[in-house]
């Protein structure tokens, strides 16, 4: 790391909880949160494939390929991204959208 150019670090605010963590520009929003042991955005495949880390972002980001099963082109234009495919380019606020599909109000049946 020491031979790399200094990397800007931005604040990411999780709107749902008000928690704030720091994310370097070269790290995805999800990776930085997980590395710091923080919670708030559901963490899954870290590859843009499963959709659990879906957030709506306010602020400037760049994104890598995200599975269209989880973020349509229209949604992408509205600021929906997968946090594991998304790098900060400024201070950000995110709203958690991706839910772990989980039964909370009815009896569980093994896995569902």
């Amino acid at each position, binding site marked *: 790391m020491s031979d790399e150019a200094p990397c800007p670090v931005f604040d990411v605010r999780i709107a749902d909880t008000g928690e704030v963590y720091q994310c370097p520009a070269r790290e995805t929003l999800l990776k930085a949160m997980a590395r710091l042991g923080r919670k708030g955005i559901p*963490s*899954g*495949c*870290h*590859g*843009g*494939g*499963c959709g*659990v880390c879906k957030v709506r972002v306010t602020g400037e980001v760049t994104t*890598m*390929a*995200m*599975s*269209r*099963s989880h973020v349509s082109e229209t949604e992408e234009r509205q600021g929906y991204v997968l946090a*594991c495919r998304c790098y900060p380019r400024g201070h950000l606020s995110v709203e958690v959208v991706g839910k*772990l*599909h*989980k039964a909370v109000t*009815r*009896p569980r*049946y*093994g*896995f*569902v």
Partner: protein
Amino acid sequence: MGVMRIGHINIRVLDMDAALHHYENVLGLLRADQDGDGNVYLRGWDEWDKYSVILSPSDRAGMNHIAYKVESDDDLDVLRRRIEAYGIEVEECPAGALPDCGRSLRFHLPSGHLMYLYAEKTYVGKAVSTTNPDPWPDGLKGAGVHWLDHALLMCELDPESGVNKVEESTAFMQDVLDFKLTEQVLVGPDGDIKAATWLARTSTPHDIAFVGGPVKGLHHCAFFLDEWSDVLKAADVMAKNKVKIDVTPQRHGITRGATIYFFDPSGNRNETFAGLGYLAQPDMPVITWTEDELGRGIFYHTGELNEAFTTVYTEGA
């Protein structure tokens, strides 16, 4: 007679270069071919047919299809009749429809997953040859996996509305393709809802597995390693390559396999699975796991299901 083993899986990837680094340098699969549409074909060093993995470029992660190899061409005629008699539509595809394969049968499991059966695929031989072979070849990369071992498919399960695609796909595999049920998870107030099953045609604990979830999907495809020490080395290889590991080396209670769950760069879950578990002979009694010990069935050491196990997976079609 009938189905022999898993033949190949066709996985969709969002970034082919990243996928190739993962499947070639981390898992250690060997590249067999590439076609004009950008699909890449790979196999393990211990396999003899040309490929067991097809990577297809796509903007959606997940599985296109899974294919099983039958013993002889005649089996395809017999199985076609049986599948149709069961009420499932079958399309017979000409040789070459599956690249480097003879004619094939194409149909959907009751869970909706697309499956092919074929009898012939181009033979290329093992990397160690068949004459006075060494136990492993030189130049293996990464984990050096032997072969594609099995896949776990997520099937829609919603007992309150009477939907159980685990049960339906399991019955199809047993009744029509003559798979043997080796292990099952039974849940619900009366312990009679099949929430997961493991089935085999070989004498390994499973060649396919089904687990109930909210929607159909690909849970993982697994690659074989010999033993624990190989699994631990594979975990080191993954860490060196910053692969996202879902579950660090651990044992499954079910199948007794030594495992790592991890994700390819498109978020498709992979597994390195070590050990042959036990010999699943045709007369072996079915092993049942109850709902209260489900966590230990899946992750034997911790005894706890992780949140991601049934919520994080990619598309199944």
